[in-house]
């Protein structure tokens, strides 16, 4: 009795699966987008992380006009950190800052050379554009470095004592300037949200186009239906892992130190959780338009800013980290970085892997429970 029930159930599950495959395969555009879009988007996103920052725009007002102040100004414009534009009064600086024409302004007050000549520390004012804190931080660090270099270059008469503390820094796994190589594994979860969102729409479409009504007449059950869609989209998206992996390792030369099979396994784990979440969304909404907006709200902006892809998750902020850990992509960011760059093993990755399993069980379960064979 139980045996025949199980056989029938699996048969129904397989027929849903076959139907979904047909949906993906019959439309060449959908096929390309599900298989290849992650790799294409990864190429586009990865090119922006070119190592080595660009030039910051600096406005310079030299109120001193002495050879020494010019020498100081020349050290700033001499290298690739800044492109310096000279201004002649304070109002001009204000206008430039408001128009976002410069990232920072440097004011050398009159008496600069006199103070330095007397052996003192001459005050120099820096006005930062505080809106983009990333740029402001970059400008601060760079300017302080230049000031220190200028001090050394002045070759003062007295000999400098050695610095009391020296920091020997070492960046593990990757050299410190390998910005692109460290970002690409973190981007993989974001690019996989494309096929994941396609699954949300696949479910919403059934309801919108009315084919759900014919499905109601069939003996298929909630879990079989959700499961069929889940497996179809997870396996379709998994095929897309190969081009993504090729783009990362061959095109952008990201080192791959882990086990490819482990990556495949954990990607499947991640896709189960996030497709499950997408199916739940698709199940709750009534139209594909709503499904798209919901999916964008959940996968797009948080995918970039809450998953630890850029800024790491602040574990002391309970609410924030709780929301981050509900998103499957957060765990997958950890996994991708660890497998690609650290060569992590399954034992080391067991915490995020188990978290993803729990998440997928929760979302698929919720999807199966809420799936009602009723015309709303």
């Amino acid at each position, binding site marked *: 009795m139980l045996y025949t029930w199980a056989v029938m159930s699996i048969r129904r599950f397989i027929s849903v699966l076959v139907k979904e495959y047909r949906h993906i395969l019959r439309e060449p555009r*959908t096929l390309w987008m*599900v298989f290849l*879009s992650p790799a294409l*988007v990864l190429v*586009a996103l990865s*090119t*922006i992380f*070119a190592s080595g920052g*660009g030039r910051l725009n600096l406005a310079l007002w030299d109120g001193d006009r002495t050879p020494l102040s010019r020498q100081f100004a020349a050290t700033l414009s001499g290298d690739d950190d800044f492109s310096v534009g000279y201004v002649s009064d304070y109002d001009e600086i204000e206008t430039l*800052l*408001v128009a*976002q024409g410069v990232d920072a302004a440097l004011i050398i007050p009159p008496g600069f050379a006199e103070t*330095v000549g007397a052996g003192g*520390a001459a005050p120099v004012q*820096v*006005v*930062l*554009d*505080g809106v983009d*804190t990333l*740029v402001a931080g970059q400008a*601060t660090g760079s300017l302080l470095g230049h000031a220190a270099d200028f*001090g050394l270059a002045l070759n003062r008469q007295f000999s400098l004592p050695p610095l*009391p*503390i020296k*920091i*020997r*820094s*070492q960046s593990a*796994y*990757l*050299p*410190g300037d390998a910005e692109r190589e460290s970002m690409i594994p973190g981007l993989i979860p974001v690019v996989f949200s494309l096929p994941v969102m*396609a699954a949300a729409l696949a479910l919403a479409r059934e309801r919108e*186009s009315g084919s759900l009504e014919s499905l109601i007449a069939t003996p298929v059950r909630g879990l079989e239906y959700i499961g069929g869609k889940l497996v179809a989209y997870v396996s379709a998206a998994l095929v897309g892992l190969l081009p993504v992996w090729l783009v990362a390792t061959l095109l952008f030369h990201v080192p791959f130190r882990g086990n490819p099979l482990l990556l495949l396994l954990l990607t499947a784990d991640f896709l189960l959780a996030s497709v499950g979440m997408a199916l739940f969304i698709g199940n*709750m909404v*009534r139209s*594909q*338009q*709503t499904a*798209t*907006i919901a*999916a*964008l*709200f959940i996968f797009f*902006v948080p995918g*970039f*800013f*809450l998953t630890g892809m*850029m*800024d*790491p998750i602040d574990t*002391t*902020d309970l*609410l924030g980290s709780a*929301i981050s850990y509900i998103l499957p992509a957060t765990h997958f960011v950890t996994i991708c*970085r*660890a497998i690609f760059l*650290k060569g992590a093993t399954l034992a*080391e990755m067991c915490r995020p892997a188990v978290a993803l399993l729990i998440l997928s069980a929760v979302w698929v379960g919720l999807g199966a429970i809420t799936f009602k064979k009723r015309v709303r």
Partner: protein
Amino acid sequence: MQETLNRIRGLAIKELLQLSRDKLLLLFVLLAPLLELLLMGNLSGGGVRNLPLAVVDLDHSRASRELITRLGQTDELLVGMYSDNVSQAREQMQSGAISAIVVVPPGYEEALTAPQQSAEVQVIADGSNHLVSTAAIGTVENVAAEIAQEIAPGAGPVDMRFTARFNATLAGQPGAITMMLGLIVYQVTLVIASQSFTREREMGTLEQLRVTPLGRLELMAGKAIPTLLVGMVDCLLMTGVAVAWFHIPVRGSLPLLMLFTIPFVLTQVGWGTLISLISRTQQQAMLFVFALAMLEVACSGFLVPASSLPEVMRWLSYISSVKHYMVILRGVLLRGAGLGVLWRPGLSLGGIALGVAALAWLRLWLGLDPDSLKQRLRAWRQTSRRERSRRPVVRRQKRRLVAEPVYVDVRTEE
């Protein structure tokens, strides 16, 4: 003219009705932006904070404890582990529990206080996230510089004094919130616009739309109005939340911001119309939207400052509406910029909107089918081939078709 307006109004009313019928959609269009802004405003924009740090103190002296306490007091670092050997800490780094390791070697205090010696401190940072390693190393260097300054006070010749305009405390929130505001308006309007024709096609109502007397421009205008409304309302509502909840100042004029929101939203309408015309199902449209959105975000300077983008991306960023809108948004809200400085991004936005609208109009001119470009090309190729092979026949037929009308001289019958 009056009839045109009537037709546009009819279509716009129909679109608005459709929008308001789906209560859940309305919720997502009007309420979700506010919720997401609240969430993201509270959570992001803090930069790197509280990185778990492992300390390997081999000196066990007062000075080393002082160093460790100071490291823990910074915003960026949080001492999460004390250990006696480095390999144990490295294991924790491998699993991701620890982001940086600071090793204080034996004899640190001695070397620190001796005038002609320098103490060495080793930092190992997790380089698998570039931001983490740079922040960790930078923070330790800053703390070391502070301690050095206290032990041997000596200033360089230049004393830099920093002030930050528009955001004196250099808090991350104003920048993050204006960014989110722009992004959310962007995504909502793009999604609504991108489903317009695809939805009609899937529901089968495109056929009805085809037989209405609506012209191409009327069709575009009628579809654009509801999206424009949604975009403006969302922008206003979110600005309200940003001001009331996050205390973001409005230093410029709000009507100016609203004025520039129009071309920004119209650009998204143009892209959306294009996408909805070239995709057969809404699923495809959504994939196109997501791909386009990621590209725009990539070159608009969110993830990487615009100045450090590679050459190709920097050129692309000039046609990214998000980038120009961000300048306007931050200009009006945070910098107090007026029309005098904002005309340039405003004009760029207008140009982009016109360009994209022209593209959409061209695509609409080709036909409403996703394959109409291909069909037209095929038809053109076939006719030209036929003409090439059987030129005389066609000519003769044509001549017969355009043959002179047979005049019957009526007078002769008289």
